[in-house]
């Protein structure tokens, strides 16, 4: 067993370093990223039906941003806070995947 030692990785638990192998699933894990409130993302894959806003437009909280269809259900994404639309990344008819950034927002500097 000692002869052909596998290549161990360093693995840190409570500041102690251990030499060990990784599992496939561990290698597949996704790094966590903080949620950016300015990104409007699709929470399910689907098709864009309507876009209600344009870049540069001021939008009040609760107004409609985008309508898309997923698994025969139509969903309208609303403006989460009063602010400005910075970018619209999709067009009507686009197929979007889950978690894709559809619209970028900018918070109003007031308050």
């Amino acid at each position, binding site marked *: 067993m000692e002869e052909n030692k596998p290549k161990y990785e360093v693995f840190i638990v409570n500041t102690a370093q251990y030499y060990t*192998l990784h599992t496939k699933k561990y290698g*597949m894990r996704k790094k966590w990223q903080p949620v950016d409130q300015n990104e409007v993302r699709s929470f399910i894959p689907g098709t864009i039906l309507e876009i209600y806003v344009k870049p540069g437009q001021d939008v009040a909280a609760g107004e409609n941003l985008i309508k898309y269809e997923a698994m025969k259900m139509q969903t309208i994404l609303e403006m989460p806070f009063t602010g400005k639309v910075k970018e619209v990344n999709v067009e009507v008819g686009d197929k979007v995947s889950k978690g894709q950034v559809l619209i970028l927002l900018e918070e109003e500097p007031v308050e």
Partner: protein
Amino acid sequence: MSLKRNILDLRRRKKEAQQGGGEAAIGKQVAMGKKTARERIKAILDENSFHEYDLFVEHTGKDFDMEKKVLHGDGVIIGTGTMYSQPVCIYAQDFTVAGGSLGLMHARKITKIMDHALKMRVPIIGINDSGGARIQEGVNSLAGYGEIFYRNTEASGVIPQLSVILGPCAGGAVYSPALTDFVFVVENISKMFITGPGVIKTVLGEEISMEELGGALVHSEITGNAHFYALSEDECFEQIKKLISFIPWNNTQKALRFPTQAPTFPVSIEDIVPSDPHYPYDIRDIIKAVSDSSDFFEIMELFARNIVIGFGRIAGNTVGFVANQPMYLAGVLDCDSSDKAARFIRYCDAFNIPIVTLEDMPGYLPGVDQEHAGVIRHGAKLLYAYSEATVPKVTVIIRKAYGGGYIAMNSRHLGADFVYAWPTAEIAVMGPEGAANIVFRKEIDEAENPAEMRKQKIQEYKDKFANPFVAASKGYIDEVIEPLETRARLIHSLEISENKVDKRPAKKHGIPPF
């Protein structure tokens, strides 16, 4: 004279029905590298022991021109036979008959043999090879699945239930195997998923092959749905036979006893473990070094490899081993490993199999993904399973037993009957590195040479706490033993526990953190 005619008629009818889907369909099955349902049953059971029932059952479909179709045996073969000369019940879906699709009578046959198995208190083996629900029979197919699931649940913990996936097993069909004790899969042949690649592509636009979505390796390595992975059907049948040799026929019996055999592992148990707790080794070598004939039958080998579970024998009796594996992820506990071990512990407890725990782990796997995946509730399953188990429970602490993991790995506090520690054991609230940073923070920060001071303090902590003697002084462990004494101690502990009685308060059932 007339009797002879009747007998010949019966033979002709049997022969016809036993053809299943006919030559062309059988040819297709073979071309896919698959055996026929009948061949599979014969390969698993003792020679010439199979007795079939319901060969002449016909389907009841009336819609979509189904009434004109003859489906021999309605696409499933059921029967009884023996393994190691002991009775078992078995069914095998026949893909050559209407794709092994499940209609009302097909399901009735399966539930009939399941009812038999439960009543007779013998194991049931189900071979799945089916395109899914028979759409033409509509809600009757759904009813059939539901009735199978109900029986799976009823039989759970009473008789062993084995599922062998030798073909597609999709949609609702997957839940019967998921409810059973052990799932066997074979490379390139087994496919399990709720929603197939076709639907995923149309709805979600994600393209993936059947193998990548729900092939044998995916379920063995990633999802943890499968317990045994084989490269061929023959290898799979050998695994089934081997598993059956380790488990009792029902929950009132004990597993078959074999003559005691000495371990044959070539390396001395003293030479397996590096003394530096930061370096890995294969915990299975320790298991082999203490097991009869060094024969260890691992379960879920590829899933959550940071914990090892499986069966071996000690002095001729089956034991379930649960062991941290320093070789993978340093042997930490995480969502998957807790889940894997907890279910196995409950299996052992249900079927009167003593549990031997070998401990060497530095704690829980750190990370946002683990916390968000629910390591709290998954980790709690392990505490629950150990605490709940009333079978003999023996723990040997090999090296690291830190923090919550020390408690979780069948500590005295969760009801272990015997806890031993090697002199290399470090039973402490955390590893010396982490602990020194907290306990001696001030000294380290204020030192002229903090790195040197830290090193010194780590050693100080190590000498004081990272050993088995603090726990031994409180009686939390029963004895510090030399590695070479391990097998003898295990044999003795299990002998002593042979008639263990451990009564718990009466209840309908607990509410484990599923």
